[in-house]
């Protein structure tokens, strides 16, 4: 019986064994190697950019922000300024203010006063050098003003895309949401490359040159406070804010995550954040949590304070409060 089976070996089986190069397998192999080549090219793309001068060897081989010495940081800041000038035509006043001793920032927002005019969200675009005025731009202001139904704080029935002729609307109230600068920040814990961390004054920052754009932090944030650069920012020359901070509003590269930093390039100089500066109702209160006489501590001591999603345990430095 076994002899019979030997004789039964058909040419087809041999073809299967030896897998001669048919048209189909050739195309398959060609397609696979094309994909492989494309992947290789994508992986080597930074080197091509290196040749074109879009990135520099120093930028590619630099250390993590927190390991940089002052001289290295100064050099990197110079390179970024040059790049911005080359690409946008404006030489920014790029600086890197460090957190001050005895300062921890806190923010409070008066839900009884906010009328939902979105001035804060648009001021954020201008202050933080974000893409705007172009039809293809997504305006990723760090502030999202939610229109809420009165009677509950229910985010699920809220909308950020309301557009009536006048605000406030009857039976609605408005809740701007931005980064809460959490003490237990989920976004910094999930970052696989430690490109985001909490500074000493409580601000959660991103090093845009270290971020790999995996967006884990966006998935982790319970406040939807982080934004992703889907494209290279387009800003007209005259609209660029030249007062730029390394960790805050310098013009970001494509493919990195960014977020509200309480305008640390302003607030570390003692100024108010941009969103507070433009609020027509004075609903926004900003100050130093460690100073017992600060405005923010007046709110925390005297007003009814509400913490958004308190149950998730993030311990935010951003508070909502109510007034008469």
């Amino acid at each position, binding site marked *: 019986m076994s002899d019979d089976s030997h004789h039964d070996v058909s040419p087809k089986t041999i073809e299967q064994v030896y897998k001669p190069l048919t048209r189909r397998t050739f195309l398959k192999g060609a397609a696979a190697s094309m994909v492989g080549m494309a992947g290789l090219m994508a992986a080597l793309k930074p080197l091509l950019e290196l040749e074109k001068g879009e990135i520099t060897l120093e930028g590619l081989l630099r250390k993590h922000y927190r390991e940089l010495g002052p001289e290295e940081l100064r050099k990197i800041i110079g390179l970024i300024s040059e790049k911005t000038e080359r690409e946008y035509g404006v030489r920014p006043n790029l600086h890197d203010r460090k957190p001050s001793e005895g300062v921890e920032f806190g923010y409070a927002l008066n839900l009884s006063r906010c009328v939902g005019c*979105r001035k804060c969200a648009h001021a954020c675009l201008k202050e933080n050098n974000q893409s705007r005025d172009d039809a293809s731009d997504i305006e*990723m202001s760090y502030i999202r003003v939610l229109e809420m139904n009165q009677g509950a704080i229910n985010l699920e029935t809220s909308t950020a*895309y309301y557009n009536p002729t006048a605000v406030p609307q009857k039976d609605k109230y408005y809740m701007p949401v931005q980064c809460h600068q959490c003490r237990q920040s989920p976004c910094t814990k999930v970052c696989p490359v430690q490109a985001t961390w909490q500074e000493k004054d409580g601000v959660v920052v991103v090093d845009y040159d270290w971020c790999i754009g995996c967006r884990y932090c966006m998935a982790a944030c319970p406040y939807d406070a982080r934004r992703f650069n889907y494209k290279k920012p387009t800003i007209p020359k005259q609209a660029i804010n030249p007062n730029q901070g390394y960790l805050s509003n310098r013009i970001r590269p494509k493919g990195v995550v960014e977020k509200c930093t309480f305008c640390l390039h302003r607030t570390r100089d003692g100024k108010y954040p941009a969103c507070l500066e433009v609020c027509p109702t004075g609903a926004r209160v900003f100050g130093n949590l460690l100073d017992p006489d600060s405005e923010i501590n007046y709110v925390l001591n005297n007003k009814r304070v509400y913490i958004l999603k308190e149950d998730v345990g993030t311990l935010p430095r951003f508070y909502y409060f109510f007034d008469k």
Partner: protein
Amino acid sequence: MPPSSSSRSPLASTANPSSATDSKLQLPVVAKPDPKQPAVGLASDGHLDKTPPRKTKGLDLVKAGWSYNCMECHKLFPARWHYEGALNEHKDITLDHGNNRFCLNCHHATNRTAFVDYDGSEIAEADVVLLCAKCHGTIHRDWKAGVHGRQNGYWDARQGDKTRLRCIQCHDPHSPKFKPIAPLPPLKYPARGANPPQAQTAQHSDKH
């Protein structure tokens, strides 16, 4: 307030004499310039719109080309204590200030360019905050603490000064309720999670 700028003088607008002779009596029309608004915030923040919600008007009047001090009329016409709708003058003012229905609750009876305190003494026009504090004490306390109304400039007093909006830069004293304003357009950032933007914009296009 005496007329200070040249644009308020009656001769300023009679630049074209031929049109003036056409009609029998044509009083020159003088636009009342807005009184100088106090500076808000830092000069370096030109890219941010820090305009207060309301322009302050000042207490001087311009009628028929002349600017008047309040007391030039009110020496002759003492105001009635009871306010019952529009008077002959001041028809542009509608008093809608809750239970506060009397002019002389706030305006001084014998010096109309000042406000009146509890004891009848004067509160200067510049100190209008103290006038409002007569009734709105708790709000005044919040305002002094920097929690009611907007502040601009420096949060850190060691590094710079802050400017603070006064009551009448947001509230019309005759109708103090904050008026609805037009919102800026919604941002184009795509939504995640509940309420995708398509559904929302569809609802809105139905309404309009």
